[in-house]
Every structure is written in C-alpha cells, then in structure tokens.
C-alpha cells in the first residue's frame, strides 16, 4: 500500500528564514510526487511536481528515492507563503488513486 507522511502539522517561521516541509512516502514502484497548496479562502492548487523539476514561487522539492522523501524547501520564507501544504503520491502505471498526506500548516510571521 502507498502511504504519505507529513510529520509536522504546523510549522512556524519568521520572514526571511529558511523553511523545509517534510514529506516521506512508502511505495515500492515508480512514484509520481506532487506538492499542493491551499492559501486562505482559495482552492487547493498544484504547487509543483517532481517530474517537472521546476522552482515555483521560490520553492523546490527533490525526490530522494533512497530516503523515500520529497521535502519542500524555500531558502527565504515570505509572509504570503503562509498556507496549508499537502504532499501527494500518485502511481505511474496501474492504479491512479493519489494518496495525500495530512498536510502541514505553514505560518510565516513578519
């Protein structure tokens, strides 16, 4: 069975500080990993996916198959980054039901 773990329910940092939102997964096949974000009073939306290897809004995430992790990082947090972040795992081939983590609430203080 596939599983996504986001160990932190809440992460609180000050503006300008580095931020890392952790995501660990368990899956034996080839994973497709995503980070979704939900800003206050907005709908859930894709932030980035590992196959595109992009940096979005200053965020990056690297898939580490050895550690089965897909942590989301930003070197300098901004107040507008405050949001709920969900890590999600989809499966390449076979079942496409994605598995979401429970989410991490990021609060960036001024």
């Amino acid at each position, binding site marked *: 069975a596939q599983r996504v773990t986001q160990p932190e329910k809440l992460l609180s940092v000050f503006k300008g500080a580095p931020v890392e939102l952790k995501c660990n997964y368990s899956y034996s096949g080839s994973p497709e990993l995503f980070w*979704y974000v939900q800003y206050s009073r907005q709908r*859930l939306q894709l932030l980035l996916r590992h196959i595109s290897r992009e940096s979005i809004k200053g965020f990056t995430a690297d898939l580490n198959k050895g550690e089965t992790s897909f942590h989301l990082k930003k070197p300098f947090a901004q107040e507008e980054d405050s949001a709920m972040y969900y890590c999600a795992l989809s*499966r390449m081939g076979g079942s496409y*039901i*994605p598995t979401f983590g429970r*989410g991490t609430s990021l609060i960036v203080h001024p």
Partner: protein
Amino acid sequence: GAGVSQSPSNKVTEKGKDVELRCDPISGHTALYWYRQSLGQGLEFLIYFQGNSAPDKSGLPSDRFSAERTGGSVSTLTIQRTQQEDSAVYLCASSFAPGDEQFFGPGTRLTVL
C-alpha cells in the same frame, strides 16, 4: 474555460436527511475524484471515476455514500441519512488523464446539525 465548479458552496442539513453535492469538472478531463477534507484529517479519498470504467469506490466510508458520473462529465455525490460526523468540506477534482495534475473545485461545506 472555467475551472472545476461545485454546488452548493454551503449546505446545512438536519441529521437523517439526504444531501446531493454536485461537481462540474473541466471539459475534456477524463478523471474525476471526490475527497473529504476535515480539520486535522487532511484529504480523505472517497471515489474515483475514469472515463467509462467502473468507479473505484474503495474510499467511501459507508453505504450511505454513493456517487455517479453522468455522460463522463458532471458528478453527484449523495449522502443518505446524514450524520453529524459527515460534516466536512467535500472537494471534487478533475485531471486530464490519470495521475496528472488535479484541478480542484472550491468545495462544498456540509454541516449536519
């Protein structure tokens, strides 16, 4: 075109009543998902439709929950004999193909009194 839409945006009902929640996916998207979002519980998968295939209902919490997707487009999630623990935000998402980026609707906030 427009994104995924859901209606109603809010629904307050009494325990024991039936409710229907509607989702209009993005045109051309073959995959449609329903989730339940509860405080502290994250996103709970409910049901998945892909094209004309039989839906995957493995996430439905009880037989009071059912969903259908007509003509490969609009979907309706029905909850019969609602209970207070059904109170949550129900999210619908669609994707162009299985495993692709999901586009989410704004959700329906269901409150069961």
